[in-house]
């Protein structure tokens, strides 16, 4: 190690959170009593002390420029002594002690295009990933699809008018960064053709045994092309997961015509009422159609509306489907049921219907 390195400060970890907490939170830390929703986008926490904390939640595009962050900082200074936070779903939250400042803050936010909402039984900010903005693996754009979706579903962010929370998530490939696999509705980028092997670069870029081992279905075989060691993919065994590509850059799956999106429904994370569940396949494939992906938007809105019309209070999307049964879900949404909906991976048999319990 260079002497230079020794002087470097490392391993200091993040700053301690305490210095960023507003006084009202420090005083009521661990001593909150209950909360209520004051209006859309505003919730109030009441302390044992009687103190009231007003949280104003605004949508953020997640991909924020320094200007926007500074704008948030300015608002925080003006309305709440400089304190703010972000949520686990990328919303920004302003922490006010003074009720009278709530409405003015909301107005200012609205003026700059940052609407409030997302509390209670609403669609909050979708969890999403990098897409064509940054990731090499992406089968679609993340920010673009999310923007198109939320423009359309905006009413459900602005007003908590659903039967329960509805969590949207987007991931641009099967790596599923985020918690896409347990979302009420998840949109997932998919590849659909086998890896294209670059026989020129593979020797330099990839370890052949690691590459062969990376395939969950054993579809990759070592081979020799023009005297160079390479690999080949058994077409029938490939399900386009791109795991090989993760370990070997010379096996690309991106394809303008074949890539696209799939839609998954009924997952949840909370333990409230029912146990956490995975999302299940609703629509196997929708082509990429930037910049507004209208087919995706329409498909999601359809599911949201059918759910909103049919579910009982407190019923998450997956709980509603389990009550009415999957056949009814397909019937009500008009989504076609195909062989792709039938699992054929390792625990597939566990998903077959092994009883008479279905509606005739």
């Amino acid at each position, binding site marked *: 190690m260079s002497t230079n*390195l020794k002087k*470097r*400060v*490392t*391993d*200091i*970890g993040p*700053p*301690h959170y305490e210095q*960023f907490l507003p006084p009202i*939170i420090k005083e009521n*830390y661990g001593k*909150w009593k*209950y*909360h209520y929703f004051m209006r859309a986008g505003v919730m109030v*926490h009441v302390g044992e002390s009687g103190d009231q904390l007003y949280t104003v939640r605004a949508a*953020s*595009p997640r*991909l*924020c*420029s*320094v*200007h*926007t*962050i*500074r704008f*948030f*900082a300015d608002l925080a200074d003006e309305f709440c002594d*400089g*304190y703010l936070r972000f949520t*686990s779903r*990328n919303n*920004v939250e302003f922490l006010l002690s003074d009720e009278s400042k709530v409405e003015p803050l909301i107005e200012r936010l609205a003026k700059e295009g*940052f*609407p409030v909402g997302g509390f209670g039984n609403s669609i909050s900010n979708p969890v999403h990933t990098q897409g*064509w903005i940054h990731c*090499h*693996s992406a089968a679609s*754009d993340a920010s*673009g699809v999310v923007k198109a979706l*939320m*423009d359309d579903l905006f009413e459900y962010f602005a007003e908590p008018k659903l039967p329960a929370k509805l969590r949207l998530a987007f991931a641009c490939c099967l790596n599923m*960064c985020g*918690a896409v*696999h347990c979302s009420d509705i998840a949109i997932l980028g998919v590849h659909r053709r086998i890896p294209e092997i670059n026989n020129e670069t593979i020797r330099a870029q990839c370890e052949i045994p690691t590459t062969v081992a*990376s395939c969950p279905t054993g579809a990759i075989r070592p081979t020799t092309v023009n005297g160079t060691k390479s690999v080949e993919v058994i077409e029938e065994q490939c399900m386009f*997961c791109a*795991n090989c590509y993760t*370990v070997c*850059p010379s096996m690309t799956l991106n394809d*303008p015509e074949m890539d696209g999106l799939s839609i998954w429904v009924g997952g949840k994370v*909370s*333990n*409230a*009422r*029912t146990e*956490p569940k995975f999302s299940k396949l609703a629509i196997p494939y929708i082509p990429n159609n930037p*910049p*507004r992906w209208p087919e995706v938007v329409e498909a999601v809105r359809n599911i949201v509306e059918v759910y909103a019309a049919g579910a009982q209070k*407190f019923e998450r999307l997956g709980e509603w489907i389990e009550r009415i049964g999957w056949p009814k879900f397909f019937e009500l949404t008009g989504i076609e049921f195909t062989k792709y909906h039938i699992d054929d991976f390792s625990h597939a048999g566990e998903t077959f219907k092994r009883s008479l319990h279905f509606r005739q």
Partner: protein
Amino acid sequence: MSEKELKTPLVDELEEGPWPSFVKEIKSLDNPKAKDLLGVLERSYRDKVGHWKHGGLVGVMGYGGGVIGRYNDLPDEFPEVAAFHTLRVNHPAGWFYTSDVLRKLCDVWEEHGSGLTNMHGSTGDIIFLGCSTEELEPTFKKLTELGFDLGGSGSCLRTPSCCNGMARCEWACYDTMALTYDLTMEYQDELHRPPFPYKFKFKMAGCANDCVASIARADMSIIGTWKDEIRIDADAVKEYAEAGDLDILVDVVSRCPTKCMSWDGQELLIDDADCVKCMHCINAMPKALAPGKDRGATILVGSKAPIIGGALLSSVMVPFLKMEPPYEDLKELVDALWELWGEHGKNRERIGEFIQRIGLGNFLDQIGLDPTPEMIAQPRANPYIFYELDDEDEYEDDED
């Protein structure tokens, strides 16, 4: 890049609409990096394909994680984003900030990078999006001066994150932010220098609502719970009943998963011995009901996304643990897990997959925990039991 080429008609369509526009964010930055990024994105929208290549091994000195290398496949056209790495900056637990510190972060990033961020990444980090290779080290230096450090990537411990817990929630059964800070500091080395077969994530949630989705995406999920009775404020129950928004019988009692509640129109009773602490009734009537006082957490292990063997949810490892500093029991468990998995885990095998491969029973044996029925949804149905007849026989896993 000429002005002409910088037309981005497709992407521009995403400036419209009520939802905040990431395109506006990019455009608001009048710098060359942001411009080229927009150009690349427009190309992707036209071509329907990404233009990023596999990252190389870039980073800051002495760290094996915290930076994701990224190169563009059209470097001639978009030279400013030819190398466009991200820095993962470890956020403060709970994502609380002052305006002051945010401005300082912005200054650093405006000076050294694209000025674009994610607030935040899915793991929880502040993402500085778009750094050239040369600027990595200077950015890191400025960050540490500001008191910030990088988060994890690669086969490291990843940046631990948590719900805001006691800071702003009445239901937190332990101090999630304190634990997150403590573990992050305790395991700085593991966070920065890849010690594992694959990534490892901690996520802390204060109660079973799990507002940080920890059961779905953390190798160790630490979720608050309690052992004693739900506290009932009978007057507040009446208030809810009278207010009429809530049908206590239909919306609360009948949705209790164990049917351990009853309501006769006057009195709400809970058979707490039968309550599985799902939070539903408390969620529905926050003013009237509250978690008990004998609080701690359930430790679950092993969730992850689908790669390679399929997605997993975390499963129960310790049904109940008091969560008090210095968290010795917890750290002992963590060390035991890491040691076993570190030694016997295969390359790119998450701990959840490792446990399935060697068997949860064997895993418990090895880390010295007694099996309890809380760890399983149901006992085995298949009769394929590996009876061990000789107590001297040591378990041996296959290490292919």
